[in-house]
């Protein structure tokens, strides 16, 4: 999902060496098993802390980078209604990034370190934000499919064992349902519009369908950390389970739009009630994670540019705060 980089075996090489299980580890696991929440100052295994810092920060980076493909369309939205919706959605994503960075900071990592990791290209973020948004229909497809997939993944994260992460996810999920609905509404307007508009909608679906499925991360048999993360209740469902749920939810929505999902192997399995889908091209996914996607370089460059061009704002805010503090001191003295 937004943190799919964690799942890839290639990133870490082999599994970490086994370590001795201590009494503290066991007590910790008992608390997690009993569905007790873990709070920042509680004892936790180093692996738990490390995994959470990586997962939450990747999630935060994804929100921040995720503002770029859509922000690109704010000035070109076709009506005021669409424009305020898009503006509000992108603003929400900035807020979601903040909630998540704050949650990561409770684990002892500083905001500066996290920003630095993103700008240096060291940090990972979701593969989905490395695709371009050449047409207005892409904004609809992102809301419908990308936010739809995100919600599917994030709702279970509201029950994550780590309190600050779970609380951030509750806020995010509450805000995010409008994102998916505005996207679907936009797709519906195009799909029921002129022939050219419908073509645009179909074209966007064609380009976003497979990348949306890849958002759930590698298949379970390829996923490196699933078992431990499930035991720690950082993760509640496997990648494949969530992907299947997403497909089952989305296929009827596409049918309602009168659009065709670009998968010739897609069929309803009457016995299980699940929609079976074709093979995913994981080469494309791995290339994007390695930094070779269509927009990887552009996204990081845009973040660097925003950071550099915002330097004077940060300096001015610090100077202003210092001046006000000095004045208050003088008045008091």
């Amino acid at each position, binding site marked *: 999902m937004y943190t799919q980089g964690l799942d890839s075996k290639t990133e870490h090489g082999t599994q970490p060496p086994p370590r001795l299980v201590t009494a503290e580890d066991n007590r910790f696991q008992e608390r997690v098993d009993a569905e007790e929440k873990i709070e920042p*100052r509680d004892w936790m295994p180093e692996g738990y802390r490390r995994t959470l810092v990586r997962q939450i920060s990747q999630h935060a980076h994804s929100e921040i980078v995720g503002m770029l493909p859509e922000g690109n369309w704010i000035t070109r939205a076709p009506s005021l209604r669409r424009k305020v919706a898009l503006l509000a959605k992108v603003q929400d994503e900035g807020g979601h990034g903040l909630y998540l960075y704050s949650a990561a900071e409770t684990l002892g990592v500083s905001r500066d370190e996290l920003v630095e990791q993103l700008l240096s290209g060291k940090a990972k973020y979701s593969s989905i934000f490395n695709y371009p948004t050449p047409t207005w229909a892409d904004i609809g497809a992102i809301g419908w499919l990308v936010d739809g997939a995100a919600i599917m993944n994030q709702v279970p994260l509201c029950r994550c064992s780590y309190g600050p992460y779970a609380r951030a996810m509750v806020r995010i999920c509450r805000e995010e349902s409008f994102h998916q609905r505005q996207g679907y509404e936009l797709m519906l307007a195009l799909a029921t519009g002129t022939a050219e508009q419908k073509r645009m909608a179909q074209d966007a679906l064609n380009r976003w369908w497979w990348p949306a499925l890849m958002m759930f991360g590698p298949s379970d048999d390829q996923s490196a950390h699933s078992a431990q993360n499930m035991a720690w209740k950082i993760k509640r469902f496997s990648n494949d389970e969530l992907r299947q749920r997403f497909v089952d939810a989305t296929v009827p929505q596409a049918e309602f739009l009168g659009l065709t999902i670009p998968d010739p192997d897609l069929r309803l399995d009457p016995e299980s009630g699940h929609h079976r889908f074709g093979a995913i091209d994981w080469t494309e996914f791995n290339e994007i994670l390695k930094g070779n996607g269509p927009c990887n370089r552009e996204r990081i460059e845009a973040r660097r540019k925003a950071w550099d061009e915002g330097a004077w704002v940060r300096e001015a805010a610090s100077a202003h705060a210092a001046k006000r503090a000095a004045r208050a001191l003088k008045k008091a003295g």
Partner: protein
Amino acid sequence: MAPPNTDRKDWPLFEIFIRPKNGLSHKHVGSLHAADARMALDNARDVYTRRGEGVSIWAVPAASIAASDPSEKASLFEPADDKIYRHPTFYDIPAAVKNI
């Protein structure tokens, strides 16, 4: 405990509390970095009250909060557990007695 944040580039951390409506207490909603308290309030408004979540904001420097240590949980809170006589149900009152 998380190691203290010693990076001086970072603006101080503020914990944000929101009163959802008059009659209710302020409740912790999250945190943010800001150059000073006024900026913390401005940013808290933009981040935590975009959908009518509140009528009042407190921004408290995180460094000013004194917190109990989770490892002292037992010595702090367990003494209360065996003092059941602090609860009204500890006392036997005949059913015939009303309004008590």
